[in-house]
């Protein structure tokens, strides 16, 4: 490109000044409107009399009190609590364990790592459908065991209202553990080897090295893992839909399926909006402190 005439230098500077803003502004506006705008809109809807269609008459907290007196909402909250807790704890523990085992300078580590990480490449719909087939007593594991001659074998959690939520946990853990393992593995690789060597010279047993030196240093990884898992748990929807459809009955309803059902099949948009705002509030309560601590650290 030839040199611009010096008289246009000012224009070019202005362009350089404005270009980044100009390029970024569409996405900025889209996010402002479609994310934050609709958060406000949904919040308003949760205080309106909306049924099948949005209706802007203000009804105060009526939809909220109907939400909290709903039978299914109680089940959904109980389920998300059970699911979230088991999912986060199991994934973290298994992920850490796998990472530690993989970190022992074993052969074929790359292959194993890929195998463990692979489920993460599948969508939740695929995971859910596959596990639904596998756990369905008439199709999968139980039937195979019966046809192999083990007649007394029984594993019918998927169709048992009290146990179905645990099958969802199993499938979700299967999917996410590899990813958490990768996070921990990266964390382990980042730990200073000198410190471990020093401990070894001092004659500390391996379990103590892990318990006292390595795992405490993984604190940021734990935090990231838990935040990632927590928001995945709260927004879990497709896995439930593919695996159990929220059933048997409402036994595996979670807030996300609750919201979908109230918004689209029950013509209760107000209640659905209230449940959505509640979910947002819970996620915000988890994520905002995390982001705050993460974004602050570099400055201190």
């Amino acid at each position, binding site marked *: 490109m030839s040199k611009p005439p010096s008289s246009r230098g000012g224009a070019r500077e202005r362009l350089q000044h404005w270009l980044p803003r100009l390029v970024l502004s*569409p996405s900025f*506006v889209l996010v*402002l409107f479609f994310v934050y705008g609709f958060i406000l809109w949904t919040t308003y809807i949760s205080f309106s009399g909306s*049924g099948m269609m949005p209706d802007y008459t203000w009804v105060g907290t009526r939809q909220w009190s109907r939400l909290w007196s709903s*039978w299914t909402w109680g089940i959904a909250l109980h389920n998300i609590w059970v699911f979230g807790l088991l999912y986060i704890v199991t994934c973290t523990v298994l992920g850490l364990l796998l990472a530690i085992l993989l970190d022992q300078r074993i052969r074929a580590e790359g292959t194993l790592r890929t195998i463990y990480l692979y489920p993460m490449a599948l969508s939740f719909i695929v995971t859910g459908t596959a596990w639904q087939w596998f756990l369905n007593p008439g199709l999968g594991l139980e039937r195979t065991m019966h046809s192999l001659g083990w007649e007394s074998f029984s594993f019918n959690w998927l*169709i048992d209202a009290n146990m179905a939520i645990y099958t969802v946990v199993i499938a979700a853990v299967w999917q996410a553990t590899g990813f958490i393992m990768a996070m921990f593995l990266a964390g382990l690789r980042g730990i200073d080897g000198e410190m471990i060597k020093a401990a070894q010279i001092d004659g500390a047993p391996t379990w103590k090295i892990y318990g006292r030196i390595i795992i405490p240093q993984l604190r940021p990884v734990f935090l990231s893992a838990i935040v990632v898992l927590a928001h995945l748990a709260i927004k879990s929807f497709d896995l439930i839909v593919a695996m159990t459809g929220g*059933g048997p009955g*409402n036994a595996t309803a979670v807030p996300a399926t609750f919201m979908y059902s109230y918004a689209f099949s029950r013509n209760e948009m107000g209640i659905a909006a209230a449940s959505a705002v509640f979910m947002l509030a819970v996620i915000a309560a988890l994520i905002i402190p995390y982001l705050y601590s993460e974004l602050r650290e570099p400055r201190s």
Partner: protein
Amino acid sequence: MTTTLNKCLVAGAVPLAMLLSASAFAQQSATEGDVEVLNWWTSGGEAKALGALKDQLAEDGIGWQNMPVAGGAGTNAMAVLRSRITSNNPPTAAQVLGYDAQDWADRDSLSSLDDVAEAGNWGEVFPQPIQRFAKSDGHWIAAPFEIHSTNWVWANTSMMDELGLEQPETWDDFIASMKTAQDAGHTGLAYGGQPWQDATVFENVVLATGGADFYRQAMIDLDPEALDSDTMTESFDRFRELLQYKDDNSPGRDWNLATAMVINGDALYQIMGDWAKGEFLNAGLEPEQDFMCFRTPGTQEAVTFNSDLMIMFKNDDEQQQSMQNTMAEIIGSPEFQVTFSQFKGSVPARTDLSADELDACAKRGYEQAKAAADSDTLMGSMAHGYAAPASVKNAVFDIVSSFVNSDMPSDVAAEQLAMAVQGASS
């Protein structure tokens, strides 16, 4: 800080305006001279039935723009419809169920079909319970396609012969015949464990237990005293007894897979609406020979129905208006009502037609529906949204499905049912 934000806002307003104007172009979708019809009739018999309408329209020189939105038993289609209405771009017409037509009429979105209805004498030929859904504030706002009834039992004839069973006339005989089948190593009741199917079977039990008056009081009038009554407790007791004859793998099963169990000779009965007949016919079976159809024992005097409705959306274009009227006229015409039901497995919604061209099950069903309309026992199905609005219907689903999938005692279930219905209708 605030000044940069302001600058960003100003710079951002331009692309936003472009975005909004782009959406304005997207509105001219329906070609002139065509009707655009939103529906979720995509499976074999349904698509053929809809094809009959398309052919009739073609004879009048009206083109057809199909807008099928499959899945979710119409949930997806209704979501599309809402967004079309919100963006002020309604289709010519849409297939809807139950209270949805009333909801759209309340929003003043629908064309009046009064002229067509008056010319076709609709007020006389369609039974009152259907009119309740097709009229709003005394004006016709929907054209009814058919009557589907939900209190049918579908039975495998060869299994009945093999077990020496007669068609049961009473509830006790019905239970006894399923016990015979189960003792012989078959499944007594082919059952799909999805909320709407749970509710379909349950409303049959309520009707068989309490009779038509009780059904109306509990399911249509939503009387709390009927919902939490001894009769309702007894209905739940009977429902529990019935559930013993389903197989263990029923949770989540689709209705047509349950029908296949009867077709394949794995199960004796299925309680399901008359759309199940299509599955038998598609399998090449003959009604009354290879499979039997009879009213759920104890409900012979009554018919619980659902009925598809075609609603037309208000349109300023005169050509569209006249095409809407033509379409409504066709749907209400005697020939179309019969042809449509032949494909769909239903019976005509008009009560002044001859049933000669229908199959054996539909013939009987049609006479029963007419008789029920005369004796005021043609009642909307709760499970299909013709007894109460969607919010109440789903509240009933919640309790009935929980009952099926737990060991909830019957009296608790009745109490919960009354509470849930009250909560949803408040």
